[in-house]
């Protein structure tokens, strides 16, 4: 029997956004092979992001960063039972179609890779697979949701181990949401114009006082305290890119960041679990980055 005969509706907004709802309070970890994927799953990750290189290595390598080798992604998919995400370049809808065809559970249209289109993002509403996209403010988030993204994350500054940009983006987002919530309805159209946001989505933010989809932290999380900080700022969960497998002891860091995300309000516990973790990933001061090396500027 077909899906229709059985009354099954696939790829609906509710199904795509609901998948992200199930990730809440959890940690999604970047991995580059099956072994790392198993360490992540064992530590309690809610999903893994399959990549050829973590952002810190992409940054170091330079050149053009593209979708990972399908073999790497398949290897990760076969290694774990938790969901597997993977990245496509901004605007590269064929890379996204390939990931969808492979059965990847969530596609990240990501500024960590080199953009393939300097004007347009992928029309994500046409896909059965759900998408996550980065954003620095409310307007950017609502443009991505307007294109069909089912999950948002801060951009931060990937591969730096420096939380300052993710904090900036989350504070900006929350401040704008509070402002929109308190506006009178007749101010919303002008605000939509100013933010470059679809009016209907802005209206929804005004009415509900929150984004229509889940919002995670990403781009610079390196320690359990960083993860807890982002949860306090209002994030629904945390992506850790280079922070796990560029640290001195990945399994310990992975477990500690998971626990700090769950118990982000329990400071005594975070003290205990932060002891003897070894060195965190090496960090990068943002002001030392050439503007052209700032991944967060990618996206329109």
């Amino acid at each position, binding site marked *: *029997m077909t*899906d229709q005969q*059985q*009354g*099954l*509706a*696939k*790829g*609906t907004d*509710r*199904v795509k956004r*609901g*998948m992200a*709802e*199930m*990730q*809440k*309070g*959890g940690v999604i970890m970047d991995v580059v092979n099956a072994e790392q994927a198993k360490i992540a*799953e*064992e530590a*309690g*990750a*809610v*999903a893994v992001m399959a990549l050829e290189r973590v952002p810190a290595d992409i940054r170091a390598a330079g050149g053009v960063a593209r979708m990972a080798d399908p073999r790497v992604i398949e290897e990760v998919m076969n290694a774990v*039972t*938790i*969901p597997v995400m993977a990245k496509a370049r901004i605007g590269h809808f064929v890379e996204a179609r390939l990931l*969808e065809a492979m*059965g990847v*559970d*969530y596609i990240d249209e990501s500024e960590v890779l080199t953009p393939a289109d300097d004007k347009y993002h992928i029309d994500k509403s046409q896909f*059965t*697979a*759900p998408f996550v996209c980065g954003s620095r403010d409310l307007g950017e988030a609502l443009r991505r949701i307007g294109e069909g993204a089912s999950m948002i994350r801060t951009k931060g500054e990937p591969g730096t181990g420096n939380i300052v940009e993710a904090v900036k983006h989350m504070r900006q987002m929350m401040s704008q949401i509070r402002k929109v919530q308190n506006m009178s309805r007749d101010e919303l159209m002008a605000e939509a114009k100013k933010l470059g946001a679809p009016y209907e989505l802005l209206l929804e933010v005004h009415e509900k006082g929150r984004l229509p989809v889940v919002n995670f932290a990403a781009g610079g999380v390196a320690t359990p305290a960083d993860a807890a900080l982002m949860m306090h700022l209002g994030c629904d969960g945390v992506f850790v890119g280079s922070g796990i497998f560029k640290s001195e002891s990945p399994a310990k860091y992975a477990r500690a960041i*998971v*626990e700090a995300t*769950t*118990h982000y309000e329990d400071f005594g516990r975070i003290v205990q679990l932060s002891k003897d973790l070894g060195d965190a990933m090496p960090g990068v001061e943002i002001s030392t980055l050439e503007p052209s090396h700032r991944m967060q500027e990618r996206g329109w």
Partner: protein
Amino acid sequence: MKIGVLALQGAVGEHIQMLEKAGAQAVSVKLPRELEGLDGLVMPGGESTTISKLMHQYDFMEPVRHMGQAGVPLFGTCAGLILLAGHIEGLDQAHLGLLEITVRRNAFGRQRDSFEAELDISGVAEGYKAVFIRAPSITETSPHVDVLATVADQAVMVRQGHLLGAAFHPELTEDARLHRYFVEMVRESKATPTD
């Protein structure tokens, strides 16, 4: 009446809202000591692997199993159903092992196979819009278990006395009929103590 929602990971806030809509007081539970004095417990959707690891890590398994054995109503949705199950296909060990069923994880496939469907839930709700996300199915049930709903010929909702399990996510819709049903189960259990 106070109902807890296990809040280690997953769709916690939604369950709390729905329980409140159904007329119960709902609280999130992050530590075993917060189980004390609860009249019922909901185990939400999320990642079952993650939630079960955190339950072991924080010593939740024994106290929750005791609650179930003592007749306190428990409601597991999706990942929560897997936690309640007596057998999990492909795994040697069950988690709580309270419900006399066998579950198959990701029974319908990966996320691209996730779906919405309208269910008739026997004695609970007709035309109930249910959201299935990387959902499990129930492949075997003991004679003590009533199958309340099926989709695509697979059992997706069951009740065994004070234990209720659904393979889908009643917390993701606005429809509070299932939560009202569970709140009613809790009310009945309070009226007739089993121990």
